[in-house]
């Protein structure tokens, strides 16, 4: 087996009641990959990446992370999640905490890091996204773009082995999309492994090392950005791309 495989996903299924939303997904995600997931609304993209950090409990198949079966009873979900950062469409910052505390709270409570050390680490990360001067602000005082950059810093603070992004720019005003995509692009160029669900096709083409096209609960097509965007083979991929490219 390849020692670089982070996620080894085998026949992953997810039902919500009677409805089968994921119908058997097989994927290997390796260290350093930037996997971009595209596809129509309702195809199961969110459900798929939420299964990867167990926010959704899969109903079938297996997921190995760094060789460990994360669906086994022995695996503690919270320990797995320390290694998997997640960024949400709606930012989900902690409204009762300052920007600084949003970033340090998991370092202090989960990693038991001393206060000062956590603060230093958080300030360094905030400086990297240009928000060190907002450390004492509260989420309600920030723009959407600022919130999302802080959400990214919050997830990065734990030094995760992989980052998951679920439509990180979909809730943003258009003029703020760029600043958030830049932060993600920077992380990608530093070699951070990530899985990104997005509707930003230009971004997908630029940063992806591999593109997955999801449709109806399966991965209908996958390949390099060139393969998917320039020479899609599956008619459903062609159809989807013609629609989203037309919109742009």
């Amino acid at each position, binding site marked *: 087996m390849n020692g670089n495989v982070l996620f080894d996903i085998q026949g992953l299924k997810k039902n919500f009641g009677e409805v089968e939303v994921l119908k058997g997904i097989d994927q290997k995600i390796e260290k350093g990959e930037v996997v971009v997931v595209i596809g129509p609304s309702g195809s199961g993209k969110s459900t798929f990446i939420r299964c990867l950090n167990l926010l959704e409990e899969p109903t079938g198949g297996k997921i190995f992370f760094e060789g460990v079966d994360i669906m086994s009873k022995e695996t503690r979900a*919270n320990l797995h*999640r320390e290694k*998997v*950062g997640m960024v949400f469409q709606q930012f989900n910052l*902690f409204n009762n905490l300052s920007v600084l505390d949003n970033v340090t*709270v998991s370092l202090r*409570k989960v990693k038991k890091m001393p206060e000062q050390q956590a603060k230093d680490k958080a300030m360094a990360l905030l400086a990297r996204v240009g928000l060190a001067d907002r450390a004492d602000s509260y989420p309600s005082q920030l723009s959407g773009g600022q919130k999302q950059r802080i959400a990214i810093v919050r997830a990065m603070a734990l030094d995760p082995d992989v980052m998951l992004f679920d439509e990180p720019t979909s809730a943003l005003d258009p003029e703020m999309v760029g600043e958030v995509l830049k932060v993600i692009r920077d992380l990608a160029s530093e070699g951070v492994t990530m899985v990104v669900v997005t509707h930003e096709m230009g971004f997908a083409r630029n940063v992806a090392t591999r593109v997955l096209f999801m449709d109806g609960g399966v991965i209908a097509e996958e390949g390099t950005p060139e393969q998917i965007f320039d020479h899609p083979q599956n008619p459903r991929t062609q159809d989807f791309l013609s629609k989203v490219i037309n919109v742009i």
Partner: protein
Amino acid sequence: MSTVANIFANYYQYFLRGTRTTIVVSLVTVFFGALVGCVIALLRISKFKPLSAFAKLYITVLRGTPLLVQLYIVYYQLNFIHYPSGQFLGVELARVIPCIIALSLNSGAYVAEIIRAGIQAVDFGQTEAALSCGMTYPQCMWNIVLPQAIKNILPAIGNEFVTMVKETSIIQYLGISDLMYNNGIVVTSTYNPLPCYYISALIYLTLNIVLGKGLNIFEMRLKQSER
């Protein structure tokens, strides 16, 4: 108006004695009611089905039956208990304890629903974010959800306290000499009920206005300590 003043001047000890009992019983009930409410709310949001089902049933029953009926059921059902004899601030313990139990159990059901609603008003995305940062569910509750829920909960609990002060008036039926009980004594000796009820109404109103002001100050303090 002059009869109101007259009656109060002649019988004020009765009203004051009753008021003292009402205040003591209200305070004790509010305390234990909040305690019961926290426990029931915890059970209610528990992922363990039997516990949350029990809490749900508890809330349904206690909110779906009259307080007076509950009071009598508790009184007769628990008559095997040997309550401590003696008095506290002029109230006979053996009589008042079952009242406090009944009122607290009842209040707990309402408080539990208040707490649950307050927790649910905190958007679930923050819980998911906290979990995705590696927090356990209790860590997430304690550090993220409850500090925000408390802001929804406290005002509603304040209203519940005010309701409680008024509802304690039913303990007169078990012969506790609270405000309404003493009101009855004065009515019997003066043969003039209306002024007596006006006096009692004024006293209840005063109690609740003072309580409301106190809660307001408390909430302001809490808001200031937020930022």
